[in-house]
């Protein structure tokens, strides 16, 4: 089985690093970025199978980042995470990524893993 590569984007650095570490422990090649700029930089350097994006990020929403990444890396899949859980965000997120690819924080690592595997 090919090693899946995942890019995690969230402004909570503590969260995104731990999540990345745990995914690595489960055999995923996980990289992380805490700002959209850093994320695009990483995408320039390497290809990722799946992007896991926080919906609310400073100065840019996960949806905007997703659109830009799609243009940069066609065929890349995305999963959204949010801590907000307002209906408006949910509607927007599920319309963009499909309700099944929309996860509420705190995220269950096994569920995330399953999703990543399903998508890739």
């Amino acid at each position, binding site marked *: 089985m090919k090693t899946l590569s995942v890019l995690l984007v969230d402004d*909570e650095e*503590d*969260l995104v690093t*731990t*999540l990345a*570490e*745990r995914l690595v*422990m489960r055999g995923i090649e996980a990289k992380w970025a805490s700002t959209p700029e850093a994320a695009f930089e990483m995408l320039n350097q390497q290809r990722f199978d799946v992007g896991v994006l926080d919906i*609310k*990020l*400073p*100065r840019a*929403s996960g949806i905007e980042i997703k659109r830009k990444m799609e243009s940069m890396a066609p065929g890349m899949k995305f999963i959204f*995470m*949010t*801590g*907000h*859980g*307002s209906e408006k965000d949910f509607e927007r997120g599920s319309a963009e990524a499909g309700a099944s690819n929309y996860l*509420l*924080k*705190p*995220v269950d*690592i096994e569920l995330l893993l399953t999703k990543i595997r399903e998508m890739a």
Partner: protein
Amino acid sequence: MTVLQRLKPRFWDHRDAASGVDKHSFNLRRIWYLSVLLTAGAALIPLCLLAAIDYQMTQKAIESENVLRISRLVSNTRRSLAFLLIERRHALQFLVRDNPLGELKAPGRLAAILKNLQESFGGFTDLEIIDAQGRQISYSGPYDLANRDYSHQAWFAEVVQHGSHTSDVFMGYRQIPHIVIAVTHQPPTGPFYVLRATLEAERFHRELLGLEAGIGGDLFIVNTAGVLQTPSKNYGGLLEKLALPIPEYVETTQTFETKSPAGEAVLIGYAYVAQTPFVLMAVKTKDDLMQPWNKARRQLIAYLFFSGGSILLVVLAVPTYLVSRIRAADRTRVAALHQVEYANKMASIGRLAAGVAHEINNPLAIINEKAGLVKDLLLLQQEDSAALRPKLLAQIDSIQAAVKRCATIIRRLLSFARKSDATFDTVDLKSVIESVIGFLGKEAEYRGIATRIDIAPNIPSFPSDRGKLEQIFLNLVNNAFAAMADGGHLTFQGRRLSEDRVQVAVIDDGCGISPEDLKHVFEPFFSTRTKQGGTGLGLSITYGLAQEIGGSIDVESQVGKGTRFILTVPLNPPERKNENA
């Protein structure tokens, strides 16, 4: 409970319970007083005026009617009385012209004439002829009065001078009142002579009695000396002195008012009867005269009281009803306002909750991942525990930091949701604004909105209601966020206006408010964002909150440039007055 208390309408002690949003307090009692006074005045003053004018006019009309009636009566009576006397005088004049002196002196002739007069006119008692020297020449009558000498008597002098004479009434021999009529005759040759007739005065009295009944008063004849020539009902008997004043001679019929000896006001009509010593008088008491007027007056007053009473009833009932309705409407309004105020608060809490959820979910996610990692390390890694130790400790530190973050958020939320019942404690303006920004900071961050807090250093901490201040700023910041595009700028600018006033401007560079809308922004239910779920109450509640802490709020705006809400608050808390007032 007294009757008064039971009648007292419920609005009487009404206190406007509205606070916050719209502090127009109705003074219901004042409204009631004003409308009762105005309507009562407008209805009763013309009525009373009308009644007073009618009273005056009717009184005058009846008075002049009385004067007219009495003078008409006197005038008519005088005419018939004068006619009665003139008729007899003319009869006598005719007799002396028709019968030469020689014939009159012939025995039996005078008796025949007297008999004829008694049969045709009636009332003649005797006849006598007197020569120019005042000596009786001939007599016919029931008494033995022959050969009398009248030359020294006043009436004789008068008859010689004027050609005729009518005497006062006097008591005759049979104690019957009489008068004398005498006429002179100047034959073509020889000296003049006088025909003198005695008449019963009873005739006049009878004449008057019939008329007297017509007016229900007192009608009598008096002579110029004030001696009654016919008996009066109330003011003296025959030949007694009249108890009323005798007016000066005038040719026409006159009336005057005076007091009777009994003290009653009387109206007197009088007329002098020409060529006689008689004055005809009609006397009527004012009480009798005004009797029809009194009846009309009683009716008028009864009508006035009845209509005045009905008007007063209506005047009292209508404002009472209307003011009661105002009170009911006001209570409904206050209740509705409380409800929306509550709804608005709930909406704010909802907004806060969404923010808080995000704030808490992030540290929870961290705890989750850290704990998960600890578990992974313990289960998946084969390293020895000594090597794992520092790594595990680092995870636990992160977990504790995240828990602290949650606790801080919850504490902040609790302090915000605390029922703010105007508890004044010392507040620092900057920290209040910072705590509000704390809630909305994330949204600002995500939307790229730069917030700047610029509070002048000379603003001290001051006693105020922290909860209300927070709510005011939260509402203003929410408003500003709604108006601004992503990447806008929100500035808080605080400066000290005077010794006891501080001003904070909340300035955004959003879409601005049009001048027409600007006039209405603080009105309840005015909203330009109704479709986006605005209640139209945020700013009106904010306005009320500012008033509650003794401050005021103002707004300046330019479309496209931005809006500036200016909150002015006192450094000393206002006295808590309106609590019971």
